[in-house]
């Protein structure tokens, strides 16, 4: 056996330079027996022993696998049958169709009712009055509670009338004497 060649191969193997074929040679070399080789080569015997060991699955694996796949197959068939079943058209009444909207409608109705009720109660407190009534009430209030203000208001308007009259009458010597 040419150990030199194997040593060389081994060196190149660890450098990652061997081809698949050369690696096969190395494996084959170590597979045929390791008793009488130099120490330098014997050292790596266990490494190649590991490489030559090929763990295998139990022999029952094939059967289990095929069963699994058959199981899948029938499941899938069942599914396709399910999918291919003719679909019957269902008749849906209008009420049934609108049923999902009933809740929303109820909520809207409740909100509107509540809103109106609250609105009405606020207005009844103080603001539910006509504009005319408000004006009257204001006038009455001014007359009864504040006589001074009312008097002032009236005298103001009277002054305005007086001024208006004075402006509208021309300063005529004849008529001025008459008026005064």
């Amino acid at each position, binding site marked *: 056996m040419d150990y030199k060649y194997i040593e060389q191969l081994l060196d190149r193997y660890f450098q990652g330079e061997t081809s698949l074929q050369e690696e096969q040679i190395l494996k084959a070399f170590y597979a045929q027996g390791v008793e009488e080789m130099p120490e330098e080569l014997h050292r790596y015997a266990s490494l190649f022993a*590991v490489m030559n060991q090929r763990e295998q699955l139990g022999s029952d694996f094939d059967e289990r696998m095929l069963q699994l796949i058959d199981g899948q197959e029938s499941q899938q068939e069942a599914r396709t049958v399910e999918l291919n079943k003719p679909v019957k058209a269902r008749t849906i009444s209008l009420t049934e169709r609108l049923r999902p909207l009933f809740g929303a409608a109820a909520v809207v109705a409740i909100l509107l009712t509540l809103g109106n009720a609250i609105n009405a109660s606020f207005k009844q407190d103080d603001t539910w009055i006509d504009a005319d009534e408000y004006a009257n009430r204001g006038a009455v209030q001014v007359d009864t509670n504040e006589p001074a203000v009312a008097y002032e208001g009236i005298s103001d308007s009277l002054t305005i009338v007086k001024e208006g009259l004075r402006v509208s009458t021309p300063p005529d010597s004849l008529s001025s004497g008459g008026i005064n």
Partner: protein
Amino acid sequence: MKEISFRTDVLPLKDELFRLALRITLNRADAEDVVQETMLKVWNRRDRWAELESIEAFCLTICRNLALDKLKRADNQNTSLGDEEGGGEEPADRSYAANPEEQAVQRDRVEQVRRLISQLPEKQRTCMQLRDIEGKAYKEIASVLAITEQQVKVNIFRARQTIKEKFQQLEQHGL
């Protein structure tokens, strides 16, 4: 175009997928679950098989992603990976019966190497798994991991360098 059948094209990938999942989850039961989920997923996407460049790369990609998911969930549940590793790797050894005598002699060392590989970052571990154990070309590995070929090479180089260093350290400690 060749018709892809689950029985002849996908199912035979189970051991390869299992090993990849095992490298990532470090737990046999989890890895088996991952393979099952992967195959179901692949089966459910059978309408797209014809568009695939490689059903194998497709399966490996899904398998890796599911295994990473599982790992993340396991992390979230605060299960210690160390515990799982111990429990998960041993039955893996027993299941390998091609060369029992040599295996008995080397069991300790092999166990040690497994632990070394398990300690590598996930990307390096996956690259190494696909290259050194499954014998995949850089290009295939790149498409499974969705990285460039150059990155695959770098990952494999680093993984091998780390392994080599660890071996040398073990040797020194051993002497």
